[in-house]
């Protein structure tokens, strides 16, 4: 039994390899970009618009609203990163209803990669907002003693992000796989539906946590807290 699509090796040359995670990610990227391109190619500026355009507008404005509610006053700066996080995880989850498709988020490598992106993005947004000195100063607040705890907190939350998403996605796929061998008819369908819900919740949690971390690193949240 495969625990991760990483184990699906299509091509390998030394360190370089083409496994299932990468291929399914490319498929996802292709679907998302092509769909976006097709819909946004003919956008209507009037009051009447297509239902696909309405769907995308609801999605984008919904994400923007969520980011703003977390406490980031200029959500459009973070929309690209946080929105893509949510959409990537959500679409990967929704893809599980297609037979033969394995979500790339079920790979610990992918979740680690996403967590690393958050790990890097948080200080970058923090430094962009309040400067390098101001951002580094947050690590020794309220006292210098807190420095190791803050560093450990950053590392642990990154690890938690990666493992939480991987565990949920992988466990869902695993449960469905195991149930297929025991009760191959009705129960896997119910679990797949539950898995969809779980995956969407995870996508929401992952992106919201990333937003909270970024908000915590920027001056906005500090101003709010004061």
């Amino acid at each position, binding site marked *: 039994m495969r625990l991760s699509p990483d184990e699906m090796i299509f091509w390998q040359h030394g360190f370089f390899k083409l496994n299932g995670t990468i291929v399914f*990610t490319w498929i996802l990227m292709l679907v998302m*970009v092509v769909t976006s391109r097709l819909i946004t190619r003919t956008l209507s500026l009037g009051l009447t618009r297509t239902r696909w355009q309405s769907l995308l*507008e609801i999605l984008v404005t919904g994400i923007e609203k969520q980011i703003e509610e977390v406490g980031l006053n200029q959500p459009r700066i973070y929309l690209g990163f946080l929105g893509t996080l949510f959409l990537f995880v959500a679409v990967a989850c929704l893809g599980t209803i297609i037979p033969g498709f394995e979500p790339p988020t079920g790979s610990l490598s992918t979740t680690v990669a*996403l967590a690393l992106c958050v790990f890097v993005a948080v200080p970058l947004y923090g430094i962009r907002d309040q400067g390098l000195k101001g951002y580094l100063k947050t690590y020794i607040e309220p006292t210098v003693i807190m420095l190791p705890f803050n560093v450990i907190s950053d590392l642990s939350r990154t690890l938690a992000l990666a493992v939480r998403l991987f565990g949920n996605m992988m466990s869902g796929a695993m449960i469905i796989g195991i149930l297929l061998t025991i009760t191959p008819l009705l129960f896997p369908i119910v679990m797949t539906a539950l898995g969809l819900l779980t995956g969407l919740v995870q996508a929401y949690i992952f992106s919201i946590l990333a937003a909270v971390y970024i908000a915590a690193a920027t001056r906005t949240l500090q101003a709010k807290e004061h």
Partner: protein
Amino acid sequence: MLIDWFTVGAQTLNFLILVWLLKRYLYQPILDAIDDRERLIAEERADADAKRTVATQEREEFREKNEQFDKLRADLVRQATEDANVERQRLFEEARKDADALRSKRASTFDREQTRLNDEITHRTWDEAFAIARKTLSDLAGVSLDGRMNEVFTQRLRGLNGEGKTVFNQALKSSTDPAVLRSAFDLQPEQRAALQSVLNEVFGANISVRFETAPHLINGIELLAGGQKIAWCIDDYIAKLGTSIRELPAAQSDQNDDSESECQTKADTQSVSVAEAQ
């Protein structure tokens, strides 16, 4: 090992590429479209606000104009009513004046007609009276009317005395022209001679007289001298006769009224009698 670091790197790269692609093909176009639409809506709202403001102003102007129009119309109606009343009063007065004029004209025409009728009656009465008088005198006494008139005038001249005689005598003497004796009929030479002699006798002098015939006198003789006149004619009698004729309809009307009242009384008496009989 669950973590493949090549895959981690590849997925990181894939994710960053996906971020860029979605920003380019999803977020930016959608946000631009939303912004454009909001701008469009804002412009339309601003335009609608401006139009509403203009419409409100125009409505106010229209309302004011309407009020002015109503006021003007009321004034015009009031003015027209007053003019109509004045015109009606004028027409009424004019009609009344016309009616009065017509009535007075009719009255005057009636008066003229009555006068003409009276004159005609008078003339015919004269003619008939004279014809009867001539006939009567001729048949009963064998004298003519003209001769009898001449005699009467002669008697009146003889009977002249007092102040009248003095005044006329002075008039005869002061006048350079001869006295004029007018008669309605032609005087016979012997009648003229008789009159001349009477005049000479009465006024004690030889009076120069010129005899003239004046048909308008209608059975009368008059003597004119120095603005004085002695005359006898039948006009007085005729005037009395005309007066009595004119009074005749009134008398008849009174008589009719009396007879009607008598009839009414009689009728009442009869009705009373009938009622008692019943």
